[in-house]
């Protein structure tokens, strides 16, 4: 009996120890990192972690004497990382550099709080001003000053479809809303779920809605919503809400129990025909579901957004109050170089933010997207924090979550409008 007791105590004790040690390895690093470059991100998933490691390896090769550390925080599309970042920034203990989406997530928070150094000099030295698209530089600038370096580009307005289903039923991937509903009706008649949605986390529904907004309003007017030049209760926004409502009648019944991967899976294994998701879904199709691009699944811009590119860009900036700011700039230099971008992006499954990278390193989807990126109108994503402050996005997510069930356009527009007080 006594032996058992001691044994169980030992087990508990060793559990506690191991819990502590795993803790201390993540926080303990911070103590000694004053001279170290801690690269803060939420890239812990399969391809993205490899990309980050390749980038860090490249930096170590170039600057072997500068210690560098991967300080990624896992979990939930960056939710945990953002919470950790917020407490570090507010406690004046910023990481050397951190991942932040270009647009509002950068400009209306850390730049507005005067926590970021401007990088105009670095851009001039590196000659980047004509290497990134102008609209992209605008996305990481506030009042004419540049605050971060984009490393990759994801496209959010992509419609993924199951090629076999479309071929068997003699259908063509829809390019307009009319075509979309025509195709959806045809599929529904055959008993196939036309559109897969997984809104257990409500941002996926917001994601769908923003592509509809872009389709209905066009890029110029879409951008005007976020600057306040077009009201959120504008007729066109209402029209988009009506389209959204109609689209929701074609989704799988169990959408609220699925996340985006589960929804992509429905398309992958032929239970549903189409899915709107950012192009990280390609990585999921290819790497996790082992499907072949243009054979098992196809892609096309979401209806009526052919010349538009809803852009999500991960960027890194330089926080104020660091001792090793020059080292950070060296890292940003690698990050923004052709070599750095081509090391990171093929692994991550995104495309480079620079327009002069080596196209041959990318797969067919990457090549197509790089081509589109050069000529398309870039628009900031709402669901991913580029178009508007996170407070607004949170409220839109709530309004969308209610709308998906209730389908009350008037109420939806009303909540959007009252959330709009967040847009200054």
């Amino acid at each position, binding site marked *: 009996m006594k032996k058992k007791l001691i044994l169980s105590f030992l087990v508990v004790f060793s559990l506690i120890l191991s819990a502590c040690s795993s803790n201390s390895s993540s926080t303990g690093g911070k103590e000694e990192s004053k001279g170290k470059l801690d690269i803060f991100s939420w890239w812990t998933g399969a391809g993205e972690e490899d990309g980050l490691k390749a980038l860090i390896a490249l930096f170590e090769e170039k600057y072997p004497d500068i210690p560098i550390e991967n300080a990624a925080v896992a979990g939930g599309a960056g939710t945990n990382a953002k919470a950790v970042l917020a407490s570090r920034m507010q406690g004046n203990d910023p990481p050397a550099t951190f991942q932040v989406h270009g647009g509002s997530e950068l400009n209306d928070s850390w730049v507005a709080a005067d926590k970021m150094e401007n990088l105009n000099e670095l851009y001039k030295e590196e000659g980047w001003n004509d290497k990134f698209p102008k609209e992209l530089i605008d996305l990481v600038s506030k009042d004419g000053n540049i605050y971060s370096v984009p490393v990759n580009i994801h496209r959010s307005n992509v419609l993924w479809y199951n090629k076999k289903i479309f071929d068997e039923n003699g259908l063509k991937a829809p390019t307009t809303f009319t075509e979309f509903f025509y195709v959806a009706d045809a599929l529904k008649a055959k008993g196939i779920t036309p559109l897969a949605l997984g809104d257990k986390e409500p941002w996926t529904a917001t994601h769908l809605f923003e592509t509809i907004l872009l389709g209905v309003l066009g890029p110029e007017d879409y951008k005007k919503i976020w600057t306040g030049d077009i009201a959120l209760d504008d007729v066109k926004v209402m029209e988009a809400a009506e389209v959204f409502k109609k689209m929701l009648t074609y989704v799988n019944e169990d959408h609220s129990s699925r996340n985006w991967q589960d929804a992509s899976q429905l398309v992958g294994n032929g239970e549903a025909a189409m899915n709107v998701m950012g192009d990280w879904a390609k990585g999921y199709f290819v790497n996790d579901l082992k499907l072949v691009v243009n054979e098992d699944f196809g892609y096309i811009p979401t209806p009526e957004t052919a010349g538009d590119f809803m852009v999500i860009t991960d960027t890194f900036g330089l926080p104020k109050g660091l001792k090793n700011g020059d080292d950070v700039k060296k890292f940003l230099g690698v990050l923004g170089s052709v070599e750095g971008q081509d090391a990171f992006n093929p692994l991550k499954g995104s495309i480079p933010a620079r327009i002069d990278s080596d196209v041959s390193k990318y797969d067919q989807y990457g090549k197509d997207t790089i081509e589109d990126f050069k000529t398309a109108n870039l628009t900031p994503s709402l669901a991913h924090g580029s178009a508007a402050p996170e407070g607004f996005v*949170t409220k839109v997510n709530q309004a969308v979550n209610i709308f998906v069930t209730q389908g009350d356009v008037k109420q939806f527009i009303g909540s959007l409008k009252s959330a709009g007080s967040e847009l200054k």
Partner: protein
Amino acid sequence: METVKPTNSQSVIQATRKKKKLSSDHLMALVFLLPSFILIVIFVYGFIGWTGYVSLSNWNSLIPDFSFAGLKNYLYLFTDFRFQADLRNTLFFTILFIGLVILLGLSLAILLDQKIKGESIFRNLFFFPMALSFVVTGVVWQWLLNPSTGVNLFLKTFGIHPKWYTDTTILAGFKWGQIEFGLPVAMIAVGIAAVWQMTGFSLAMYIAGLRGIPDETREAARMDGATEFQIYWKIILPQLRPITVSVIIIMAHISLKIFDLIYSMTGPGANFVTDVPGVYMFETTFRGNYYANGAAIAIIMLLSVAIFMVPYLISSRKGEA
């Protein structure tokens, strides 16, 4: 440790000696208690105070803003669709959860009390879910009650397919404020998972209670010709009342603060049918950066638990004195 009242001179001397000894004990106790006392005062009560302070401020973005906002954040919450839905969900979840945990725990305890064979095996079986974390329970039941997989594959053969936690119907609903007030069907699914986990706990409490009732009482009742049913209904159940009170208190504070089970099992749910204040607080604070709103939710949660805890603490103090 009552202080000794001196009656004569001899005992006075004894008492002072005792007192001296006591006070050095007392001092030692104080010294050992002090660190945890200070830590608790700062890190529990201090931060409750800080949260209360933040909840009255305008800090609703990444940039701290401690200007006084009065009750603005609270007023906002009580007109907010999501928070109203949270209150409704918490109410029904609490009723469902506590009711079932008591009912099942008590029935199982009475059954196990019939001196059956292998009682300890059963007791352990029922008690084991307690050892799991709510997160694990949440993930397991998310799969079990997934409408397109899980138990529905089995139920399909009988021609029924409940939508479980994806069901957005509100039973017996009527319009109240912004929301429809009634029993959210999806909450039943969450309730099942929570009851599955916590029934073992009330079972253990009740078994301990039943064991505390001397056999003589039952014997005496039997001698007087009471039926088994009468013995349980009139004699044993009334004696178990303190146990029931404890179970209610413990379950209430779990259910009012529940977060991990729901976060891992359903999230806020379509139309917020499975959302609870804990989830809302987390999302609005750490996703939306509405720090003051989040703090206000925290304070409301604290007060709602206090409604249960304070009377209990007061009555147990009275019992001590």
